[in-house]
C-alpha cells in the first residue's frame, strides 16, 4: 500500500508540475493575474505531493518492506536505522527522488518568501521551476521508478554497499543536492529575466541570496565527500580527481564565479547578461554532473549501475533545458540594458578577472574529466587523466585568483587605485616575502613551490586581516570604538573576510599535507615498533570483532609521543556478509598539526601483518578551511540587505497585529 501511495502521489505531482509549468507563464504573458496567482498555490502543493512520495519511500525502507524492489536491493533488516534511512538516497532511484524533493522545496520557498517580487517575475520563475520539476518527475516515473514491486518478496534484502554505510556519507548527498538543485532557482530567475527582458535590484538580490545558499551547501557537500573519502577509503588521500568529484567541482567553480558577478549586478547594475549566462551555465553543469553520476558513463567509486537508457533520458533533459535557455539567451540577452561603466582597474574589473579564471578553471576540469570518454567514443582508445594533468593546468589558473582576491576586494568600485592598494598592503607583502624566504631557507630550493604556495596563503590571510583593521581603524582610535565599528560593518563584509581567510587556511592544508606527507608500508609482527611524524607506534597484534551487520579484524597500535602514551589506534578490516563486501576502516589520530593514519593490510605467513602508516601534516586544515568558507557564506546570507524583504514583511504583520 505504501509503495502505491508513493507512486500515486508522484503521478499526481507530475500533473501539478505540468500545470505549474504552463499556466502561470501564460498568465505572465497575457498579464492575467489569476493565472499568475496559480503559480504559488501549485508550487506549494507540488512540494507536499513530492514530499509525501519521498516519505513513502522512507517508510518502505524503515519498515524493510521487501516487496519493494528498491528496498530489497539496498537495505537489510540488520542495518542500523540511520543507514536504513540514508539507504533511501544511497541508490539511483531514491537519490533522484531526493533531487526532485529538493527541487520542489525550492519552488515552494519562492512561492512563500517571494511575495515582494513583481507578480509576473514570480509567476515566470515558478513556471520554469515547474517545467524543471515536471521533466525530472517524468524521468523518475518512466525510467527509474523507486516503487517497483517484487513478487514473490524475498525474506531479506541485499544491503547497502558497506563503504556507503558511514555518517559522513549519510549527509553528503543531501548537501550536494541542495547545492546542485539550489542553482535551479538561479537558473529559473535567469530565464525569467530573459523572458521579461529586464533585471531589477529585487532580481539581483534574489539571485545573490540563492546563489550564496546553494554555494554554501555545495561547499559543505563537497567537503563531506572528500572527508569521507579520506577516512573511509583508506588510501590516505582526500581528493582523487575522480570524474564524479570533478562533476561537483565544476558547478562549484562556476557557482563561485556567479557568486561574485552577482555582487556587481546588485551593487553596480553592470555585468547583467554575463551573470545570466553564468546562472545558466552553473545549473547546466549541475545537470551534467547529475548525468555523469547517474548514467554511470564514467567508471568511478560512485558508479551505481551502468544504464544507457537512463543516461539518454538525462542527456535529452540536459539538451532541452540548457539548449533552450542558451538559445533564449542568444536572442534576448541584447535586450537587457547594462549600466555602470568602469575602468580596467576597479573592483568590477577585478571581479571579471576572477570570473574569467574560475570559468577557465572549470573548463579545464571539464576537459580533463571528459577527455578519456571522448577518446574512447571517437577512437576507442583508453586513457586516464590523473593528477599530473590537473597539477599542470588547473593549479596555475587558480594561483592568480588566489593572489588577486585580496587586491580585488580592496579596489574601489568604478575606478580603483592599484598603487594605493599595494601601499596599503605593505604588511601583507612583507609577511609573504618572509614566509617564502624562511621556508626556502629551511627546506632548500627543491621545495620552492611549497614556499610559494604558503606565501600565497599568508598573503590571502594577512591581506584580508589588513582590510579588517582598515575598516575598524584599529590602533588609530580607541578599541571600544573599533568594536563598535565592527558591529556596524555589513555582514556581507564579514562573510567575505571569513571566506577569503578560509581560502588561505585551505591552501595551507592542501600544500603542507601533500608536500610533507610521510608514508610507510611494512610488515609488522606483534611488538614491532615504528615511528612517524614524531610518534612511536607499537603494534600489539589483532583481535576478531563483530558489529551489528559485519564481522572483522581489529589491529592495535599503541601510540606514544616523547615516551608518553597518547592513544591506542584501532584500524579495522570489516567484512559484510549480506553485501559480500569488505571495507577498511583507518585508525586515525586527528590533531590540528596533523593526522596519524593507520591502515591494516593483509596477513602474510608467520603472523606478520602488512601495515600502512601515514602522517598527514595539517590535513585537517583542508576541511576546516572548506567548512569556514561555507560559514562565511552563511554570515553573508544574514546580511541586512538580503533579509530586508523578509524583515519588512514580518514587521508589517507585526504592526498590523499591534494596531
Amino acid at each position, binding site marked *: 500500500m505504501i509503495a502505491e501511495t508513493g507512486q500515486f502521489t508522484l503521478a499526481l505531482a507530475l500533473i501539478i508540475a505540468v500545470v505549474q509549468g504552463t499556466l502561470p507563464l501564460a498568465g505572465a504573458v497575457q498579464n492575467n493575474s489569476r493565472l499568475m496567482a496559480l503559480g504559488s498555490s501549485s508550487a506549494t502543493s507540488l512540494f507536499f505531493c513530492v514530499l509525501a512520495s519521498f516519505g513513502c519511500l522512507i517508510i518502505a525502507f524503515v519498515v524493510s518492506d521487501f516487496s519493494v524492489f528498491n528496498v530489497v536491493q539496498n537495505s537489510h533488516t540488520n542495518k542500523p536505522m540511520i543507514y536504513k534511512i540514508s539507504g533511501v538516497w544511497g541508490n539511483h532511484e531514491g537519490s533522484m527522488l531526493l533531487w526532485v524533493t529538493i527541487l520542489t522545496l525550492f519552488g515552494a520557498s519562492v512561492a512563500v518568501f517571494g511575495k515582494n517580487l513583481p507578480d509576473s517575475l514570480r509567476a515566470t520563475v515558478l513556471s520554469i521551476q515547474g517545467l524543471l520539476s515536471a521533466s525530472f518527475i517524468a524521468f523518475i516515473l518512466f525510467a527509474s521508478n523507486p516503487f517497483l514491486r517484487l513478487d514473490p518478496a524475498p525474506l531479506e534484502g541485499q544491503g547497502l554497499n558497506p563503504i556507503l554505510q558511514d555518517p559522513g556519507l549519510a549527509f553528503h548527498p543531501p548537501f550536494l543536492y541542495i547545492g546542485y538543485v539550489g542553482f535551479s532557482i538561479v537558473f529559473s530567475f535567469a530565464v525569467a529575466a530573459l523572458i521579461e527582458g529586464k533585471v531589477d535590484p529585487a532580481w539581483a538580490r534574489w539571485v545573490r541570496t540563492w546563489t550564496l545558499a546553494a554555494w554554501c551547501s555545495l561547499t559543505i557537500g563537497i567537503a563531506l565527500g572528500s572527508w569521507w573519502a579520506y577516512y573511509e577509503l583508506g588510501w590516505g588521500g582526500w581528493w582523487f580527481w575522480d570524474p564524479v568529484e570533478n562533476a561537483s567541482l565544476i558547478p562549484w567553480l562556476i557557482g563561485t564565479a556567479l557568486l561574485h558577478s552577482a555582487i556587481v549586478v546588485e551593487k553596480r547594475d553592470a555585468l547583467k547578461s554575463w551573470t545570466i*549566462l553564468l546562472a545558466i551555465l552553473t545549473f547546466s553543469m549541475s545537470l551534467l554532473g547529475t548525468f555523469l553520476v547517474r548514467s554511470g558513463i564514467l567508471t568511478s567509486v560512485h558508479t551505481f549501475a551502468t544504464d544507457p537508457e537512463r543516461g539518454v533520458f538525462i542527456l535529452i533533459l540536459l539538451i532541452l533545458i540548457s539548449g533552450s535557455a542558451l538559445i533564449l539567451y542568444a536572442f534576448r*540577452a541584447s535586450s537587457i540594458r547594462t549600466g555602470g561603466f568602469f575602468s580596467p582597474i576597479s573592483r568590477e574589473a577585478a571581479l571579471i578577472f576572477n570570473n574569467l579564471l574560475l570559468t577557465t578553471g572549470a573548463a579545464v576540469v571539464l576537459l580533463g574529466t571528459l577527455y578519456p570518454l571522448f577518446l574512447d567514443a571517437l577512437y576507442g582508445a583508453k586513457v586516464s587523466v590523473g593528477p599530473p594533468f590537473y597539477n599542470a593546468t588547473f593549479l596555475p589558473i587558480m594561483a592568480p585568483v588566489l593572489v588577486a582576491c585580496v587586491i580585488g576586494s580592496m579596489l574601489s568600485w568604478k575606478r580603483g587605485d592599484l598603487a594605493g592598494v599595494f601601499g596599503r598592503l605593505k604588511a601583507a607583502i612583507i609577511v609573504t616575502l618572509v614566509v617564502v624566504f624562511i621556508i626556502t631557507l629551511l627546506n632548500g630550493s627543491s621545495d620552492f613551490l611549497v614556499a610559494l604556495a604558503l606565501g600565497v596563503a599568508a598573503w590571502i590571510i594577512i591581506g584580508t586581516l589588513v582590510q579588517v583593521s582598515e575598516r575598524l581603524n584599529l590602533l588609530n582610535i580607541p578599541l571600544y570604538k573599533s568594536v563598535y565599528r565592527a558591529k556596524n560593518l555589513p555582514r556581507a563584509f564579514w562573510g567575505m573576510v571569513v571566506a577569503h581567510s578560509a581560502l588561505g587556511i585551505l591552501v595551507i592544508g592542501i600544500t603542507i599535507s601533500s608536500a610533507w606527507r610521510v608514508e610507510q608500508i611494512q610488515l609488522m609482527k606483534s611488538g614491532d615498533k615504528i615511528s612517524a611524524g614524531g610518534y612511536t607506534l607499537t603494534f600489539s597484534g589483532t583481535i576478531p570483532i563483530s558489529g551489528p551487520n559485519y564481522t572483522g579484524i581489529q589491529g592495535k597500535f599503541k601510540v606514544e609521543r616523547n615516551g608518553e602514551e597518547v592513544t591506542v589506534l584501532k584500524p579495522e578490516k570489516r567484512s559484510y556478509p549480506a553485501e559480500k563486501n569488505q571495507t577498511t576502516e583507518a585508525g586515525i589520530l586527528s590533531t590540528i598539526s596533523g593526522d596519524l593514519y593507520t591502515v591494516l593490510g593483509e596477513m602474510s605467513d608467520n603472523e606478520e601483518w602488512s601495515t600502512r602508516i601515514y602522517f598527514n601534516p595539517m590535513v585537517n586544515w583542508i576541511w576546516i578551511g572548506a567548512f569556514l568558507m561555507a560559514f562565511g557564506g552563511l554570515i553573508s546570507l544574514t546580511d541586512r540587505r538580503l533579509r530586508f524583504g523578509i524583515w519588512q514583511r514580518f514587521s508589517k504583520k507585526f504592526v498590523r497585529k499591534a494596531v
Partner: protein
Amino acid sequence: MRNAVVIPIFTLLVLSGILGLYLWQIGTGQKSLNYLPSALIDKPAPKFILPPINNDGEGFSTEMLYGKISLVNIWASWCIPCRAEHPFLMELARNGFTIYGINYKDEPKNADRFLQVLGNPYLAVGADSSGLTSIDWGVYGYPETFIIDRRGYIRYRHVGPISATDLSNKILPILRRLKN
C-alpha cells in the same frame, strides 16, 4: 554578446553529441566500461618458470606456450568468480583446447581440493605464491584469461569470469580464427 553565446551553444551540441554517441555505443554493446586493453596484446608472453602446486608434476613455464594455441587462466581457490567460470574452462578442455593455469597466492592444499572437487581443466598449473608472475602478466583482477598463439604471443585478454556469452561471442571465435 550575441556572438559570444555561440560558444556555449556549440559546446553543448558537441558535448551532447559525443556523450550521446558514447551512450549509443555502450547500449549496442560496441563499447564496454569493463573492457581493459592489455599493453601486452600482440607481444610475447612474459618469461617465467613456476613450480607445480604440490611439488608434483612439472609446473608451468614460458617454454610450454610455444608451438600450439593455448589459454592461460589465472585463478585461485579463494576467488568466487573463478568458481563461476570453472564449468566453461572444463567445457573448453573437453573440446580439446589447451589450458594452462597460474594459481595466484593460494594454499596448495586448497588449490588441490578445488581441482579435485570441481575437476582439472589445466594441462599444467604453476603456483605463483609470491604473485610476481601475475604482475608480469599485468593481471588486474581475478580471474583473468589470456589467449596465446603458436608463437607464444598474447592475442587476447579477458578480465573477470568467463560467461556463456563471452565463450560463444569472444573466446571461441578468437580461438577458431587463430587456428586457421
